[in-house]
């Protein structure tokens, strides 16, 4: 149970159970990293973060038993992969041999035992990230904090590492907080998702629920949904439910918008338009239809959606 405030950055109250993976998503500057650093103790923070009988926020960093996987890894460049992973255990007083045995075991679990003697600069991005995660896990922390663990990696490496991390997270008995800007991380790795926007918690829920009924345009964009505010309600609908026409649609539907095409790009088998209506909307149509309508960036179009294809829900719970 945490309730914490970092001045000018983030104000968040949330709970998480041991064994649970809580994804933290939100746009840049929403306060995701600040939240992690507050739990780790690296920024000044007000409030409390209860873990068992202790308030984490009153403890010095090194006594918090958190494992932080930094953005950009921050592996100690002068130490080998093995010494990096053994660092936490040795710092906590384990004898060298014992610490190295545990570290070797962790490298093995990540399938990189043969890289034990390498320095961080001799590792690929994916290998370095594995070492960084192993280093955080080796101290058996109560809370594992992952700050954008896949950023900067090749897409194929991301996929492999995501699957691997999922396995380790399932085995991890503590609380895991995973900061990410990628919907797929939240959907595949998390038990619950916490959405931050402008330093505030705007939504907490199971990944599927958050993906189906997003409350922020950021999350809607991440999961590929259009999101339109309508009074106290939000309306979410998929881009392929949008009908594109060059003239104002007939009929009485209120669900219609008007604006110039901003971009137009292939998206799977379809062509996806981003239209500067109010708000910005995505629309998918067949390549044939796009050609027939002679669509191009800058062209004014009308968009409409059938009420039956739109999911409506309260803007605030």
């Amino acid at each position: 149970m945490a309730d914490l405030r970092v001045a000018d950055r983030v104000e968040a109250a949330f709970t998480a159970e041991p064994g649970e993976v809580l994804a933290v998503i939100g746009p840049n500057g929403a306060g995701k990293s600040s939240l992690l650093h507050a739990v780790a103790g690296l920024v000044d923070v007000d409030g409390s973060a209860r873990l068992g009988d202790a308030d984490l926020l009153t403890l010095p960093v090194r006594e918090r038993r958190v494992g932080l996987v930094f953005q950009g890894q921050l592996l100690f460049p002068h130490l080998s992969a093995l010494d990096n992973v053994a660092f936490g255990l040795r710092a906590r007083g384990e004898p060298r041999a014992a610490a190295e045995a545990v570290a070797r075991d962790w490298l093995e679990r990540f399938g990189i035992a043969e890289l034990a003697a390498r320095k961080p600069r001799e590792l690929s991005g994916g290998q370095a990230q594995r070492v960084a995660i192993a280093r955080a896990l080796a101290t058996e922390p109560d809370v594992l904090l992952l700050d954008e663990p896949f950023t900067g990696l090749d897409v194929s490496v991301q996929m492999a590492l995501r699957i691997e991390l999922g396995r380790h997270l399932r085995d991890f008995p503590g609380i895991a907080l995973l900061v990410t800007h990628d919907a797929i991380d939240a959907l595949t790795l998390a038990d619950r998702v916490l959405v931050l926007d402008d330093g505030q918690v705007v939504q907490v829920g199971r990944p599927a629920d958050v993906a189906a009924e997003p409350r922020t345009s950021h999350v809607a964009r991440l999961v590929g949904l259009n999101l339109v505010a309508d009074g106290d309600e939000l309306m979410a609908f998929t881009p392929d439910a949008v009908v594109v026409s060059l003239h104002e649609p007939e009929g009485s539907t209120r669900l219609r918008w008007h604006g110039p095409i901003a971009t137009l790009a292939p998206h799977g088998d379809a062509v996806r338009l981003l239209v500067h209506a109010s708000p910005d909307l995505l629309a998918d149509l067949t390549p044939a239809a796009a050609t027939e309508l002679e669509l191009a960036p800058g062209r004014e179009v009308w968009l409409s959606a059938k009420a039956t294809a739109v999911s409506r829900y309260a803007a605030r719970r």
Partner: protein
Amino acid sequence: MRDRLGRPPALLVVPAAVATLLLVVPLVAMVASTDWQALPGHLTSQTAVDALRISLLTSTVAIAICLLLGLPLAWLLARVHFRGRGAVRALVTVPLVLPPVVAGVALRSAFGRTGVIGEPLLELTGFAFPFTTYGVVLAHVFVSMPFVVISIEGAFRSADPRFDEAAATLGATRWTTFRRVTVPLALPGVVAGTVLGWARSFGEFGATITFNGNYPGTTQTMPTLIYVTRQSDQDAALSLSLVMLLVSIGVLVALRDRWLGTP
């Protein structure tokens, strides 16, 4: 190599060439006027051997003391926010710009036989720094410490402090972090600072002669020997200077090849 942006203007090239000549010509002239036949004799005289021994000994002891005390100070200045940090840094820097002879006078005021610390020290222990080899070490520490502290502080500052944070999240105390992370990461800078400090100490003249006089076998170092020899035997002074020049070049080469990584 052709310069893509055009030929460098004479307005800049000419002063640059003059500057280079100004720095190189005296050294070349010194080497050229050395009496090579008499050189071995000059360098093996008892006073020269003593002076070289004292210079090497005092510089090395002084730099060890500078490291022992200066490394912690540099770390505090680089990593710990405390009241008066700016003032401490400014005070540490003062000896850097202070004329060495003034440093000698200041040392007299503190550690001289009637000095603020020197007088009670003499009464208590019967020991006084001036005119002893210990005094030479003290003078060297005083002039070299700022070099060591300032350059190592710079090295600590350029080492990413987030590595310290990473160490802390892994459970390391600040002492462990200092030992296993901060110093190893800043090691090239630490070594460079140490070598620079040693060179400064090896060449120290003003503070040493003011505080300790110039007694062969106890306080006479290479620079102070060169100074007195110059008045009687110009050729011998040249030979001794050549030794100092070689040591200086040696320091530069050591710094370049091992630590600075310049091509």
